[in-house]
């Protein structure tokens, strides 16, 4: 087995190109990548969708061969396959690679055998890992019955059985709840202390900041590599927090985004965060500007925003000007009115003996952005399907647009726009064909239909993609198309189920700008997400866990609930963790 010296890097790529054939074209997943990972450090791999993160991981694990260039792992060239080197590499693929019909113990046994550990050593190591991951009590449970967070920890344990020198984690925190994310990081930190080299891809900026080094990948090329200050130092003096006494954050953000010299404005817990091109842009009366330390997210936006403006033409332009009827309507907007558009009372849904949703009550007012937050499996999608009349409720009452959804579902459907998880577009129809189909499906005819389609193409900047099949679109564009299709019949209520899942950070912020614009026009929006930072964009939200509502209110109210002496200013994520822990304590006390 190769022995690494202090100086040599556990993973080196030299001029690596990887192309895949897609139909007649060759797609460059990686396009001339040179990099070196520092031994004993945690390196974060970031980049938008399709940047080549998974390809890079698979190359390092010896699962793919580079089209040209060389990959050196632990001092050995991978040109002829990884062979015995794979004993020293731990790799966790995106879907964790578990056998769902095997129990936790059986999965561990299988991977111990595959790593050729002798039974005694295997048992000892398994014991250590079960302790580390706190999976001990679940040894006999089937992997398929574990929660997302537990699956992720089991997948990690399987990759760690023969303590690897190089650990590769491909998006380990996608779709798991904040608690599981925190636990994963505790494990990664423990490994870092033991000197394991870790390369992990992620789409969370806060995770990038916890890494020793960051690799930013875009369109198959390395954009920048280095420790965090390397990214943030050039932005010093360009980041500001803006507050306004009279204006709500959303309106303030809109005003700031359009201002000269502002590259980006985003809503955070404390106020609106602004990234300027240079120095401080001009302040308006009533605004309170405060210089802040740059964060990785600022660097990400600055670096990728620049690339996209240089490369693309009209596609990546923000929708601010074109899409939105100006904000004058928004001032008298009904958000603060009290017409209830959605009323849910004591909603309950059982699948067999399993209670997917219970005691769910909330009210959504017209023009609100209402969020359902929670990890995968919290019951968000089930609640949504009941609201849209796609799934009958087991008990409770629900009214959408004044219609009782348990009786007359079809009457309400014409007033609802629905974007399903993963978008549910016709993959082998082109963008134009998808639009035409959905327009027909909503019963639009003649001139009205032509107008609706023309508007959608313009507002969502889809004209350039008219003839492209939906399957071949980047995820961000697909999301735009799905939104355009759901809005063709101009519904006053829009349901969005995990619209930002898997979509890269830039496409996500563009998406939220559109949603804000729609809300400003008076559309009521219900949205589910497992990204806690997106909560700040909502007017009000509910936090769900295991089918129950833990808390509801405005983002500020929720954060307020979780405020403690040690954490006077908790983020939404910290608030979520606290609320769940509190909830569990209550359950334990009750039982």
């Amino acid at each position, binding site marked *: 087995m190769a022995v690494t010296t202090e100086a040599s890097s556990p993973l080196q790529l030299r001029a690596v190109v990887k192309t*895949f054939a897609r139909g007649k074209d060759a797609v460059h997943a990686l396009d001339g990548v040179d990099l070196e990972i520092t031994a004993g450090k945690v390196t974060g791999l970031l980049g938008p969708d399709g940047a080549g993160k998974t390809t890079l991981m*698979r190359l390092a*694990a*010896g*699962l*793919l*061969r580079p089209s040209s260039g060389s990959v050196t792992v632990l001092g050995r060239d991978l040109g002829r*396959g*990884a*062979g*015995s080197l*794979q*004993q020293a*590499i731990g*790799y*966790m*693929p*995106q*879907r*964790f*690679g*578990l*056998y*769902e*019909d*095997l129990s936790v113990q*059986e999965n561990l*046994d*299988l*991977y*111990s*055998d*595959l*790593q*050729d550990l*002798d039974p005694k050593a295997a048992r000892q190591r398994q014991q250590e890992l079960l302790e580390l991951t706190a999976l001990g009590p679940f040894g006999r449970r089937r992997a398929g019955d574990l929660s997302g967070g537990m699956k992720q920890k089991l*997948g990690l344990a*399987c*990759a760690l059985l023969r303590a690897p020198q190089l650990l590769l984690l491909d998006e380990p925190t996608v779709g798991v709840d904040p608690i599981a994310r925190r636990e994963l990081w505790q494990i990664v930190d423990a490994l870092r202390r033991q000197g394991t080299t870790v390369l992990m891809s992620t789409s969370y900026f806060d995770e990038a900041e916890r890494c020793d080094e960051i690799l930013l990948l875009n369109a198959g090329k390395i954009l920048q590599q280095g420790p965090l200050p390397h990214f943030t130092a050039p932005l010093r003096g360009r980041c500001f927090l803006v507050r306004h006494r009279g204006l709500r954050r959303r309106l303030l953000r809109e005003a700031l985004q359009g201002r000269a010299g502002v590259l980006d404005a985003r809503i955070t817990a404390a106020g609106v965060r602004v990234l300027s091109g240079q120095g401080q842009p001009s302040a308006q009366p009533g605004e309170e500007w405060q210089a802040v330390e740059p964060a990785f997210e600022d660097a990400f936006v600055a670096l990728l925003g620049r690339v996209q403006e240089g490369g693309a033409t009209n596609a990546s332009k923000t929708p601010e000007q074109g899409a939105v009827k100006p904000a004058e309507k928004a001032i008298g907007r009904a958000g603060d009115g009290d017409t209830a558009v959605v009323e849910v009372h004591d909603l309950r849904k059982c699948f067999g003996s399993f209670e997917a949703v219970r005691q769910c009550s909330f009210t959504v007012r017209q023009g609100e952005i209402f969020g359902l937050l929670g990890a995968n499996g919290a019951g968000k999608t089930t609640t949504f399907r009941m609201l849209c009349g796609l799934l009958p409720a087991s008990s409770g009452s629900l009214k959408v647009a004044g219609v009782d959804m348990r009786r007359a579902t079809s009457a309400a459907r014409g007033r609802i726009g629905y974007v399903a998880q993963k978008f549910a577009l016709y993959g082998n129809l082109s963008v134009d064909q998808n639009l035409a189909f959905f327009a027909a499906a909503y019963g639009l005819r003649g001139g009205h239909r032509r107008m609706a389609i023309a508007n959608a193409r313009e507002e969502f900047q889809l004209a350039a993609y008219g003839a492209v099949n939906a399957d071949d679109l980047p995820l961000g564009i697909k999301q735009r198309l799905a939104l355009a299709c759901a809005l063709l019949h101009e519904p006053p209520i829009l349901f969005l189920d995990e619209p930002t899942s898997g979509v890269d950070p830039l496409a996500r912020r563009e998406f939220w700008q559109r949603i804000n614009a729609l809300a400003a026009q008076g559309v009521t929006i219900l949205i589910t997400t497992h990204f806690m930072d997106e909560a700040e964009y909502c007017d009000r939200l509910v936090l769900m866990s295991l089918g129950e509502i833990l808390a509801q209110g405005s983002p500020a109210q929720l954060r307020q609930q979780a405020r403690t002496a040690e954490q006077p200013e908790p983020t939404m994520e910290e608030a979520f963790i606290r609320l769940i822990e509190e909830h569990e304590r209550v359950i334990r006390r009750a039982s």
Partner: protein
Amino acid sequence: MNSRRLRGLIRKEFIQIRRDPSAIAIAFFMPVFLLFLFGYGVSLDARRVPLAVVVDQPTAQSSTLVAGLEHSPYFRPRHYASIQEARTALLRRQVDGIVWLRADFSRRLLRGQSPDIGVFVNGVDANNARIVEGYLQGVWQNWLQQRALAAGTPLLVPVDAKDRVWFNPALRSRDYLVPGLIAVIMTLIGALLTALVVAREWERGTMEALMATPVQMAEILLGKLIPYFLMGMGGMLLSVALAVWLFAVPLRGSFWVLLLSSALFLLVALGMGLLISSVARNQFVAGQIAIIVTFLPAFILSGFIFDIQSMPAAIRIITHLIAARYYVSLLQTLFLAGDIWPIVLWNSLALGLMALFFLGITLRRSHKRLD
């Protein structure tokens, strides 16, 4: 090759088989279902064929002929008053054939003129029609012989065919359908089930995780081959046991020859299954391909039901590419005729070559990589 890794993979496979209802359904339920269907339900023999009998003028002579029909296990005669009524019954498919004894039947018979019998058979089901025709002729022949015997005069036929049916004297179609079925059942387990379980590993992303461990490709392949080989042999033994003890099909050849040749065929089926799954990485496509290129040919082109010699020349040539053809021929010979060495050896050689071919290609095509 590392025995611990291989053991781990095989153990995993058996746990999965035990917990997966669809694997158990394909491996155990389907064979029993097919055996019962073909053993009890499907028969290519014509029995109790409804037959219209029209006797224009009943006499002693005509009644002995009708009695002959009535006593035959092959027919269930029904009497109709006129040929028109019988015709209507045939059109309505209430009967499959008509025997018409005209008014002058007895008179001509007694006068020594050879009388004719009208025989009409519904030819819509051509196969059945031919069989009914043959049986009718048999009854007719029998009747003539008995008349001659009664009269004390030998029946004069210029050429008398003394036919004897070898190997399956009762001509029970079950006796050759049930052995042939074993080929279909083993194709099901070897090719379809194997292709599905490998495709499932690709679909669920477990193959990617497997490949990131130090395991070798040969170990992954053997880890699939060994469990499903055992399953297939189990399916074979189950079918043989049912064939011999439940359906009373004779096993005249040696059990060990049967076992060995079955092992060879199973290797071919497994090779095809593994090859399919290296091309199709999702269960739906893998299942479709397996059914079209392995299961249906084993059913239709193997000689299991349809005689290969009576196929058009082009199809006949194609059947040489179907492994099940060789195995069906082996099975039918071993069960009904015995250890006929030329047949056993040639067919086994063909199976051996095919096994080498499919397993060899699979090994060459399988790389421990995702692209």
